[in-house]
């Protein structure tokens, strides 16, 4: 399991996952706002 506090490499991977998730959420929110 990924533990972002165990090493810098895992923290960096966690950052990438958070970034991807944030982009997906942002795109979804903006799409919904554009449609409705």
């Amino acid at each position, binding site marked *: 399991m990924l533990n*972002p*506090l*165990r*090493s*810098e*490499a895992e*923290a*960096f991977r*966690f*950052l990438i996952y*958070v*970034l991807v998730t*944030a982009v997906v*959420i*942002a795109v979804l*929110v*903006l799409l919904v706002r554009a449609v409705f």
Partner: protein
Amino acid sequence: MEAASIGAHPAGSAPHEEHHHGPPEANRSSRVEPQLLGMLLFIISEVMVFGAFFTAYFFIRVVAGDPWPAPGEELPKIIAGVNTAILLSSSFTMHWALESAKSENRFGLQAGILTTLLLGATFLFIQINEYVHVGFAPQDNAQASVFYGLTGLHGAHVAVGLTLLSFTTIRAFRGHFTAAEHRGVEVPGIYWHFVDVMWIIVYLSIYIV
């Protein structure tokens, strides 16, 4: 610190690398290095501080249903977006610095850590500039207070990170780090990525959603 147990380890050794008998050494984790444990506990506590500020944001926006941003106010999304790219880049250069440290690439370490420091300082400069030009003050309304509170709290964490990175940069240029011993790069690196993760969440909440 005296060893209280039979077969206890000399100070500074990693207990998990040797056979030991009896209870673990007092005030020491048997699994996590002290420096890493210190940063781990610090980050966990800071996540809780951010949680408190996000709670205020939640109450204003969801519970009270106040408009976001407040009427007549506009948030500089594009500038903040550029700032986000700058901070994200700094995490990449930080990772580059650490990977360089692990592979004894001294130039990569020095260039990476210095670039991280400069990018972080640029982020903070742009953030302060944004405060000057945003057009509202923290005391104007609840939304403004939360905006300044959350972004300001994050900015304070960036400042702390820049302090850590300054020490690391100086030490990197003095040749303190090796492939075997680079904890002084790893621990600030973990903190810096935490700061970046928090910014992504702050940016998403404050500027985008």
